[in-house]
């Protein structure tokens, strides 16, 4: 029940891989780790959610905050490899129309 955060940074791109659970316990750590990267001008941030087994509104809140900050600095935020579960969470809250998300490619597991 923890969250591992891996961040790779090249020029203007930031690639984040998350593994574990995002809830009220881990969300503050996630926010603290990612926020500084969102404040870079023109950053292109990709967050891979393939290995996130659990997420709730605390995680959605972190990504909304991140999106706001990234947009403010003329950057882009993309969330990738969402499981059907996570995709559902984003769609029932209306966030899938606001955040750039992509689900797992067909055939992958």
């Amino acid at each position, binding site marked *: *029940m923890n969250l591992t955060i891996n961040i790779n940074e090249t020029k203007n791109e930031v690639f984040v891989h998350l593994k574990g*659970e995002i*809830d*009220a*316990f881990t969300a503050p750590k996630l926010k603290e780790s990612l926020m500084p990267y969102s404040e870079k001008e023109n950053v292109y941030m990709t967050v891979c959610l393939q290995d996130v087994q*659990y997420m*709730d*509104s*605390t995680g*959605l*809140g*972190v990504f*909304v*905050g991140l*999106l*706001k900050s990234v*947009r*403010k600095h003329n950057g882009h935020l993309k969330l990738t490899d969402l499981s059907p*579960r996570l995709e559902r*969470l984003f769609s*029932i*809250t*209306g*966030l899938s*129309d*606001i955040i750039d998300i992509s689900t797992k490619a067909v055939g992958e597991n």
Partner: protein
Amino acid sequence: MEMIKDYVEMKFPAKPEYIGVVRLTLSGIASRMGFTYDDIEDLKVATSEACTNAVKHAYKEHPGEMIIGFGIYEDRLEVMVADRGESFEFDKLREQLGPYTPSIPIEDLNEGGLGLFLIDTLMDEVKVLAESGVTVFMTKFLNGERVENETVISKTETN
């Protein structure tokens, strides 16, 4: 309505690190009852949201305890999450919250408060009592496809 079969209660410090432990227990109970994978995930999110509220809203001044109760029935699971902290106006909050819409400018998006909306959306029935703390009662019915444990066992045996 059928009679309650079993009742399970847990008491935790109202701290975020225990919400994952609540989820594990819930997951075990719901899976034993035969809930589907999707229903178990809904239950996990809704229950965690109620615990998050207990942790965040209820104990601004000093941390206390949260009590999680599971009412196990033949046809449904009732989850109760109670705290004895400062109460908040659930119904008023619920009216203000809802899904995001693309018409809201990005900079005006709220970063919190989706929890109550999710509880409402993911559970079949939700009741809230706000007297000396907040108690959330949430019910999920066993109406989806059941995970048939017996079937799995007999299949294994014939192999």
